[in-house]
């Protein structure tokens, strides 16, 4: 009852002030727009807006970023489905089945399912977050440490290597390449420069945003350019039919499973929505009777990935607000918003600024509802993007990607890295490697190494101690089984 009152008070604070309403609406539309424009992402918008939040009230600043996080995560699905360019890494598994659906003229069904499932995942996550932030944070403090986070990274990478590449070998090589790229820059324990090849700018490592834009957006432009040059280009078909209620109802278990997977990944510090989407997709494949249909335009693939990544958005706020630990790039920027206002996210926020917490909770709940209403209204308009000839869309995407890569650090080197990643991505795609695998390796590499090092120090370099921790044991066994299944298939499956 108290919780409902607090939620209503948060809602009243959100909708009682015209400036706060304007910021909320800006966040909803801006997140969807920047998520849905190929070449830029919600991170670009967040990076541009970060300095302006200094002039806002702390609650308004954090709320704006939380809203962009929810709607941007959904927006990225649209470009993944229509152009095979995930707006953010968390939308990468959506492209596995979403883009083949577009090629088959079922783009309306894929986008419609993404709208609905993003909203369901996000609303469910916001509700659980509202009810359980404090108990979950307490549970996480007691049960989740570096060994568990390393074990989850291991499991996640094992799942990621099993999807996307032409063979299991190429799946593993893709993930390992991402992990290798993540080692560039200072090592997370001693701060020693690694692989900077004499360039001081590389001491900070390869920035995620340019690498991701290069691997996803630029490489796709190059693939389409090659198709145009060789006469193989085939314009995608516009399909306006939405999924029926029966079609969606048939996937109710996939939705529930993805909510659980997404929420679990979301509450773990540093993991966030990207791994949630991969795990959601991986679990859908694991439980399916028709595994071979995945990757060829199966609606369940889109549903699982989009439900899981949005279910992680609300959950990712739990370690941020309760422990002060960001779960990804955007939540890390939220820490900066807190710090700009002389606040530190963590348990004290609940006591010092409870109104801030409840405005953020209410805003995330309504932002996820907005995905449903605005998403359904705008979907048909967005589908017409497919009618724009690609020779006109390509320069726009490349230019926006250039701006997106440059803005976050103001370095031309990042633009070069992006185009370099684009060429590497293009060549790797032609030879059947998994771009999402590389990106996941890149994102989780540093987190994995840092938590492995901390975990090893905790257990005094005795790996057997890892197995005295139940969550850690389960995750390591699950990861090992996934790898073992891959090895078995690698040597036993005929072509």
């Amino acid at each position, binding site marked *: 009852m108290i919780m409902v009152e607090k939620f209503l008070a948060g809602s009243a604070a959100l909708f009682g002030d015209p400036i706060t309403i304007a910021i909320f609406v800006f966040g909803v539309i801006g997140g969807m727009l920047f998520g849905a424009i190929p070449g830029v992402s919600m991170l670009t918008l967040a990076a541009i807006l970060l300095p302006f939040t200094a002039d806002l009230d702390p609650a308004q600043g954090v709320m704006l970023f939380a809203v962009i996080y929810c709607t941007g995560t959904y927006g990225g699905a649209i470009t993944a489905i229509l152009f095979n360019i995930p707006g953010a890494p968390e939308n990468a598994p959506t492209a596995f089945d979403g883009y083949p659906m577009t090629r088959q003229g079922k783009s309306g069904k894929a986008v419609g399912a993404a709208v609905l499932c993003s909203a369901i995942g996000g609303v469910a996550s916001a509700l659980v977050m509202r009810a359980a932030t404090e108990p979950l944070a307490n549970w996480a403090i007691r049960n989740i440490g570096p060994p568990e986070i390393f074990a989850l990274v291991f499991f996640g990478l094992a799942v990621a290597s099993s999807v996307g590449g032409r063979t299991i070998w190429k799946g593993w090589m893709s993930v390992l390449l991402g992990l*290798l790229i993540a080692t560039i820059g200072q090592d997370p324990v001693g701060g020693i420069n690694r692989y900077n090849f004499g360039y001081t700018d590389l001491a900070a490592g390869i920035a995620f945003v340019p690498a991701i834009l290069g691997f996803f957006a630029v490489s796709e432009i190059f693939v389409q350019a090659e198709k145009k*040059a060789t006469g193989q280009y085939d314009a995608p078909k516009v399909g306006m039919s939405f999924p029926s209620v029966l079609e969606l109802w048939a996937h109710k278990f996939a939705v529930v499973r993805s909510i659980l997977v997404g929420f679990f990944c979301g509450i773990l510090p540093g993991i966030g929505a990207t791994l949630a989407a991969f795990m959601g997709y991986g679990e859908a494949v694991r439980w399916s009777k028709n595994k071979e249909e995945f990757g060829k335009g199966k609606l369940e693939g889109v549903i699982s990935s989009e439900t899981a990544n949005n279910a992680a958005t609300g959950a990712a706020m739990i370690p941020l607000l309760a422990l002060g630990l960001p779960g990804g790039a955007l939540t890390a920027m939220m820490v900066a918003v807190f710090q700009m206002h002389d606040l530190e996210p963590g348990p004290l926020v609940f006591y010092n600024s409870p109104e801030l917490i409840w405005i953020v909770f209410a805003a995330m709940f309504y932002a996820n509802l907005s995905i449903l209403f605005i998403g359904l209204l705008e979907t048909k308009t967005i589908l017409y993007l497919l009618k724009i000839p690609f020779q006109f869309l390509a*320069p726009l995407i490349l230019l926006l990607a250039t701006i997106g890569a440059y803005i976050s650090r103001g370095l031309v080197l990042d633009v070069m890295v992006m185009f370099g990643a684009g060429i590497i991505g293009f060549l790797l795609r032609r030879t059947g490697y998994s771009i999402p695998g590389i990106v996941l390796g890149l994102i989780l590499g540093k987190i994995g190494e840092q938590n492995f090092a901390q975990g090893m120090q905790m257990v005094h370099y005795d790996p057997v101690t890892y197995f005295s921790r139940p969550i850690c044991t389960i995750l390591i066994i699950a990861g090992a089984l996934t790898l073992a299944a891959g090895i078995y298939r690698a040597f036993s499956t005929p072509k």
Partner: protein
Amino acid sequence: MGQLTKSHLIEGGIWSLIFVVFFSYSFQFNQPIEIYKFGATGWPRVILLLLLLVTAGNFYHQYRYGSAVQKGRVGIAETEDTEADYSNPATLLKVVSVLLTPFVFAYLLKPVGMYSGAPVFIALIIYLFGERRWKWILGITLLIYAILLGLFVVVLNAPLPQGNMSPFYDISGFILKMNTNLQNLW
């Protein structure tokens, strides 16, 4: 040679080269860390050794089965399996031009800046993608440039590279001054 082709040998060679370069370079930062037994090289070297192992596995797979998609793989669109035909040198030239133009644009961003470089880049990409109607090239270039200025300069005040060479720096300065005047109107 089994099912191996020249491209498989090149592919294997590139991965082996990556291993050799990165493993050799790891000796440059092979310093002990007092609080961490495995040092700065432990993690990257394990990754490199696994990469070498998997590269050997991949080579073996290609020797046995060629480039075929392994049965049961998910997340692979069948449409991506079609091989491009590069028998015509003009085709290769077109693709290489598209691959290199963004690099040249990125390289010139520092001296030329975004404001002067973007219109040329946009028009060039449209041309390289096969559009030959100059009115369309001009019109779409102006439209995209207007979107760039409207959204990132006027609305978001994003700091874009201005160039450091005359007259490009002056052109950027002129556009930014116009923007300031526009902002002062409201």
